[in-house]
């Protein structure tokens, strides 16, 4: 029923792992996903469990709460994507800890949803993230935009500060204003796919910059020999 005709990935084939330390939430999300035909291949209530169970479960999508017992959601995102770069991480967060959301996105998460989102929004988000799309909320777009604004500000000694094209900035701002990709495509007279690509590019630039920064930090700290 909720299997949209236009979706490129069949729900039945999507393997999902749910990581949340609140049992009621984990169960609710798991049930919703299973009813909709997703295959829930693993659940975890702590970061350690998530990292330990990920290799065997081999999920396409990890639905991840950020506020979990150690290691936190940001670390889990980094670790599982190192292990399997083809996996996708969808952050499902309740608390307003914006800095953590931004860190998780920099670490490679490609979707973010607040927990008060409806079931349909959750299912659609999992489907789109699995298909390689990025799922932005207006809030996340605002955070990413803010991060780019800070990076282009003064006193940035980094070598390669990423810059958005005018079009990318425009699209990101529209997402932050709460417009859907469809509305943006109509307003800018672009295809839905092009809007999607612009959004993805902004994330890619941010993640790339984050990797460069981490490497630079590692070299500065003299840790590069350990690799």
């Amino acid at each position, binding site marked *: 029923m909720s299997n949209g005709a236009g979706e490129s990935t069949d729900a039945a084939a999507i393997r999902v792992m749910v990581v949340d330390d609140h049992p009621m939430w984990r169960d609710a999300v798991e049930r919703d996903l299973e009813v909709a035909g997703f295959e829930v291949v693993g659940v975890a209530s702590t970061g350690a469990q998530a990292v330990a169970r990920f290799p065997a479960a081999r999920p396409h999508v990890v639905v991840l709460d950020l506020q979990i017992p150690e290691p936190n959601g940001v670390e889990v995102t980094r670790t599982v994507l190192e292990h399997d770069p083809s996996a996708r991480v969808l952050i499902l967060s309740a608390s307003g800890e914006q800095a953590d959301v931004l860190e998780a996105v920099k670490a490679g998460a490609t979707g973010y949803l607040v927990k008060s989102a409806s079931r349909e929004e959750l299912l659609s988000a999992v489907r789109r993230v699995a298909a390689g799309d990025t799922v932005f909320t*207006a809030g996340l777009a*605002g955070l990413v935009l*803010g991060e780019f604004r800070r990076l282009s500000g003064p006193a940035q000694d980094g070598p390669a500060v990423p810059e958005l094209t005018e079009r990318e900035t425009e699209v990101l701002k529209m997402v*932050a204003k*709460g*417009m859907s990709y469809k509305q943006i495509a109509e307003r800018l007279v672009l295809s839905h796919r092009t809007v999607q690509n612009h959004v993805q590019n902004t994330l890619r630039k941010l993640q790339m910059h984050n990797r460069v920064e981490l490497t630079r930090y590692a070299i500065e700290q003299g840790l590069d020999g350990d690799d």
Partner: protein
Amino acid sequence: MLRVVVTVNLVVLTFWRRDNFDRPVATALVVAALVGWTAFALWAYSSAVRRGPPLLVLDLATALGALLATPWLKGDDFNATLPGFWIMGVLLAWAVHWRWQGGLVAAALLSLVDLAIRPDLTQANYGNVFLLMIGGPIVGYLCQSLQQMAAERDLAQQAAASAGERARLARAVHDGVLQVLALVQRRGAELGGEFADLSRLAGEQESSLRSLIRQQDTLVTDAADADLAVALDDLGGPTVTVVTPGAAVPLPAYVVSEVVAATRACLDNVAVHVGPQAPAWVMLDATEDRVVVSVRDEGPGIPGDRLAAAEAEGRLGVSSSICGRLQDLGGTAELSTGSWGTEWELSVPRAGGAA
């Protein structure tokens, strides 16, 4: 450690100066007794339970006894007492245990006995006594302040730890409450009917708790400044989505209150012209040289001539509460409207860039 050094000093000195002693055998016995006592004292002082007044009094008595024995062992005409520097151990023990008062009492008693057994008072003896009287209380005083500082540090550490623990607990509780509110909101909306009201209430509480947490987390350093991001967050609610950059946007307090008032006027317009339940979006974009607040709705839009007509008719509501405020701040308020809805862009220059 000090005791061992002074005891070794005592033994060596006594052996070296053994010719000075009238009664060598008795001296050897006394020295042996002092060495024995030192060993016992080292063991006894190592435990807090044994380190009580009886031990300290006995320790001092031993030292005084050794002093008193000197004339008998060395003859009346002597320079250095038998225990000599050995008495330092006792003095320090008293100073450590009973602070400057203890140091003073021990120093006074030792000095008194030391002077009493001497036939005459020389310059060197006076110097030693003087050092004893000064050293005892000072060491005691230092011990006292050290212990006070340690106690204060422990207290500060405890306070910091418990504040940290409270913050951690609060975060866990907040997170839990947010989870429940989100769940109620989601399930309530699915069930409909009366539960829809419950869902709406949960949504309201969720957003107010969220902005409360936000306010606690982001602190603006300069007291004269206010955080525009937090101030705008307060406008959020079930129908209004507020998006901010995730870091504090410090601006002078009056700029913040004016921008917030203009934003509120825009939202009031949405409620009046589109409907009280109409969704609206507020987005804050802060660059180095300006902040832009956009307020968007998906209503039918405002006919292009209506604003001008309203102004001409003397109804200055929109113009003065939105455009006027922005002009006063040296900024601009631009309106774009169409079939897709209405969007205000309130732009204010930032003086001197980001702090």
